[in-house]
């Protein structure tokens, strides 16, 4: 059995039970590697309950800066006896299986091609700590200690991190250091440390942060000037509002009075949440909500109202696995069609597809500008993988010269200068009419309604008047097409085939393009970033022979949109679909494309 040397290029997976405090040990481990300058990818697989079920954390160490899962596990830290069997099976040949040897291991748990490392974590912790809760918690720090030794992690970095985390609780630093030392010592004493699979300092993480997409989106909302938010808790979007709340509490409180320059409402349900956002936006505030699939379904009546009555709104849909309640703690990209077509009738929404936390930040700001400019709801389709996992991203930048684009809003003064005001009249030919805020001027008063209205905002059932407004809305969508983020295209003229993807599939797609290039299969790449589709999307699709459309859903939802809304020809689009709830990795893409192209050549 030969273990290949895999410095800075391997995957650690930690299997524990939820509610036992392993999360902090795992993020400590990941941060330590990150601070050593080595790029990492972290994925948390947790159950939809609160305590007592199996949970896993995966850390990919990737000197090549890949952004996705590799699809392999090289070192399994198996702390949950219940899942030993499947955990062992998952380890790549030549890998390691670290487990708690306090209790005898089932003899069947063995593989010739995997090195099993036993360390009696529970026993050591029970001997060293008196408090029962501490015994459980410190076991996690114990395996961290062992990994520090086995992987050659810089102990100083760990110490530094502990000091920061427990800045307020110095006594905890002590206990943690002790637990680290237990694992560390045992490993050094019993095994050859470090393993061939180890960390070597790099400087590839300068100017980068580790942040999750929900936090980044919340920061975007803060910087965009949003003051009103309303939401009903739902996994995996809850942490977005939690983060916004905590940012606001710190950075949006008027110092003199201690009073809030924001208002966050935990509403009674999602129907109310979007209603509040529309009410606040109508009244001139930047307002948003965050939800996930079921919430989006419940919002659909109001989203159609927002579209037709032309009221801005920003909605973050952090997608989870559907249909229905589905798997709330697993990831998917399956709300594309419901977001674009949310609501009955001829309704089409502007939708943005961020690919990572960095884009969550910038797209949040962009979403508010677009919503205000276009006077319509804008849906930002993130997902659990982006929203709840920590991603390595370039440091976020802000330009203090930024001013919100509030769109076409008439002031009292401007109203005074014009002979008439018609709320839904296309004065500029771009499909966008002028609006007014309540409370400013009687001359700007109008009655917003979701029922048939004419260009003046007056009730109508007249066929031509009704149609005029509906046609203008189409023109507005044309304008939207020119304002939304353009696709990211990586293209060489001589390459005939391409991949199209969106959102969190980006990392896996880029990695698979590298892998396929190595095999002599060159591919161009386009990442779609918004609906409605820019002309560049059309052009790219038309220019390629075969386009592989990679999506994390079953029904090829982006492909459906590309053929129906970007007139792509269906025959040239080949779907690669991944929808089991785990973040996509490059293997399924590489395999599918290889298979297809081989078949193509054979045929």
């Amino acid at each position, binding site marked *: 059995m030969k273990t290949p040397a895999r410095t800075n290029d391997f995957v650690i997976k930690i299997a524990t039970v939820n509610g036992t405090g392993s999360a902090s040990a795992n993020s400590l481990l990941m941060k330590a590697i*990150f601070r050593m300058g080595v790029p990492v990818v972290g994925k948390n697989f947790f159950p939809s309950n609160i305590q007592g079920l199996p949970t896993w954390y995966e850390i990919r160490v990737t000197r090549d800066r890949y952004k996705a899962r590799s699809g392999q596990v090289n070192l399994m830290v198996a702390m949950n006896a219940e899942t030993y069997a499947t955990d062992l099976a998952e380890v790549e040949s030549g890998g390691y299986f670290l487990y708690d040897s306090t209790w005898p291991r089932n003899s069947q748990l063995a593989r010739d091609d995997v090195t099993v490392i036993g360390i009696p974590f529970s026993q050591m912790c029970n001997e060293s700590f008196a408090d029962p809760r501490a015994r459980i918690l410190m076991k996690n720090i114990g395996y961290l200690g062992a990994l520090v030794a086995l992987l050659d992690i810089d102990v100083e970095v760990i110490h530094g991190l502990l000091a920061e985390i427990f800045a307020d609780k110095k006594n905890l630093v002590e206990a943690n250091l002790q637990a680290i030392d237990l694992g560390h010592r045992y490993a050094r004493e019993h095994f050859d440390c470090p393993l061939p699979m180890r960390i070597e300092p790099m400087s590839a993480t300068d100017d980068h*942060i*580790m*942040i999750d997409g929900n*936090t980044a989106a919340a*920061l975007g909302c803060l*910087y965009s*000037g949003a*003051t*009103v938010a*309303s939401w009903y808790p739902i996994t995996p979007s809850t942490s977005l509002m939690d983060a916004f709340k905590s940012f606001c509490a710190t*950075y949006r409180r*008027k110092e003199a009075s*201690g*009073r*809030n*320059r*924001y*208002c966050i*409402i935990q*509403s*009674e349900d999602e*129907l*109310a949440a979007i*209603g*509040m956002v*529309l*009410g*606040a936006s*109508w*009244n*001139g*505030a930047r*307002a948003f909500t965050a939800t996930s699939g079921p919430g989006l379904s419940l919002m659909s009546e*109001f989203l159609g*109202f927002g579209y037709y009555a032309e009221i801005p709104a920003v909605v973050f849909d952090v997608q989870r696995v559907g249909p229905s309640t589905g798997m709330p703690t697993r990831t998917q990209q399956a709300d594309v069609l419901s977001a674009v077509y949310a609501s009955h009738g001829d309704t089409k929404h502007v939708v943005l597809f961020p690919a990572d936390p960095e884009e969550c930040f910038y797209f949040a700001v962009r979403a508010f500008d677009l919503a205000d400019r276009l006077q319509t709801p804008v849906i930002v389709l993130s997902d659990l993988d982006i929203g709840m996992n920590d991603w390595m991203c370039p*440091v*976020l*930048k802000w330009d*203090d010269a*930024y*001013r919100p684009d509030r769109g076409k809003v008439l002031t009292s003064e401007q109203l005074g200068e014009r*002979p*008439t*005001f*018609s*709320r839904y009249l296309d004065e500029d030919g771009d499909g966008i009419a002028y609006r*007014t805020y*309540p*409370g*400013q001027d*009687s001359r700007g*008063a*109008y*009655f*917003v309604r*979701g*029922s048939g209205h004419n260009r003046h905002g*007056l*009730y109508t059932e007249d066929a031509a008047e009704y149609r005029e407004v509906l046609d203008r809305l189409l023109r507005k969508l044309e304008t939207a097409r020119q304002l939304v983020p353009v696709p990211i295209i990586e293209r060489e003229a001589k390459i005939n085939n391409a991949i199209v993807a969106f959102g969190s599939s980006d990392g896996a797609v880029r990695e698979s393009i590298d892998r396929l290039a190595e095999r002599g299969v060159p591919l161009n790449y386009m990442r779609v970033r918004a609906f409605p589709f820019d002309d560049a999307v059309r052009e790219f699709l038309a220019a390629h022979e075969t386009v592989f459309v990679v999506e994390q859903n079953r029904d090829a939802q982006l492909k459906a949109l590309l053929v129906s809304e970007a007139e792509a020809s269906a025959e040239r689009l080949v779907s690669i679909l991944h929808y089991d709830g785990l973040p996509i990795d490059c293997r399924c893409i590489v395999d599918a494309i290889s298979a297809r192209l081989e078949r193509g050549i054979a045929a």
Partner: protein
Amino acid sequence: MSYMRKPEVVHPGLPRNALGLTVRDYEGGMSTLCAGCGHDSVSAALITAFFELGIPPHKVAKLSGIGCSSKTPAYFLKTAHGFNSVHGRMPAVASGASAANRDLYYVGVSGDGDSLSIGLGGFAHAVRRNLDMLYVIENNGVYGLTKGQFSASADVGSRAKKGEVNQQLPIDPLLMTLSLGATFVARGFSGDKTQLVPLLKAGIVHKGFALIDVLSPCVTFNDHEDSTKSYAHTRQFYHPTVHADFVPPSASITASYDAGEVRPVVLHDGSRILLRKASEEYDPTDRCKAFDYVVKHQERGEVVTGLLYIDEDTPDFHTVANTVDEPLASIPYEELNPGDALLARIQRRYR
């Protein structure tokens, strides 16, 4: 309302309020409701109330759901912004609007279908939030706009135009909101403007959620014999309990009342409500008594009206939310932007 510069012709003799406006300035578009519909009388009472209070129309935001009743914001205060939302969801829109701008007067008009069926949850939560608004239910016991089905406020034994007799318990918005801790609970009748106008004024000025359930007969679908929500039945079984006279802050009390008969309640802006009680022992600040009173009269088939409960102490939505005095929508971006330097600082924790 789109506008055109067209000088309106105002009768020179029309009385003017403190702002110099006439009642014309508080009117709305032409009603498309049935002739005789109770809802039109409520619109008229709202026009009078706002006119007499001297509130600038553009400082009012009108909101509604869907139904004949919910159409009415088009028929008063045409120079105020209005928001005709979707069915049953007006309370949510009002909450968001209020969050964005606490400086406006919010008046929501809804129906018994809009508030007690599809919108019940949202309505209850607006009460719970003690949102600072006047919330009028134009209650006719039916869904007027969809042609006369029973609503949740239909009384047991009431007969529909098509003959069906309701056997389901009614939801009484007064009892329900009392159970939810509402701070202003009143009932009026579209046919009694003398009682209704002061109630509306008090509700507008009340700091917090003011519910006024207005019996507002549907002449087309629920004004026949054996309907308990007809004009005739309401007139007969209508039981004024607490009459509320509204006295603005500056005014002194001119009418003379017998001592003991009148109980003044001071509102947050210094206005007063003078409560004249039909019954000696009635206490409009005791929610259990109010509950008991409504139930007992209901059992006798009587519909109590007036300002049945008031509580000026419970903090309203913005007080609880601890928001600044300035409308959030008016804060300049410069004051909201935490700045580039801070962004760098915030991100240290993500290293």
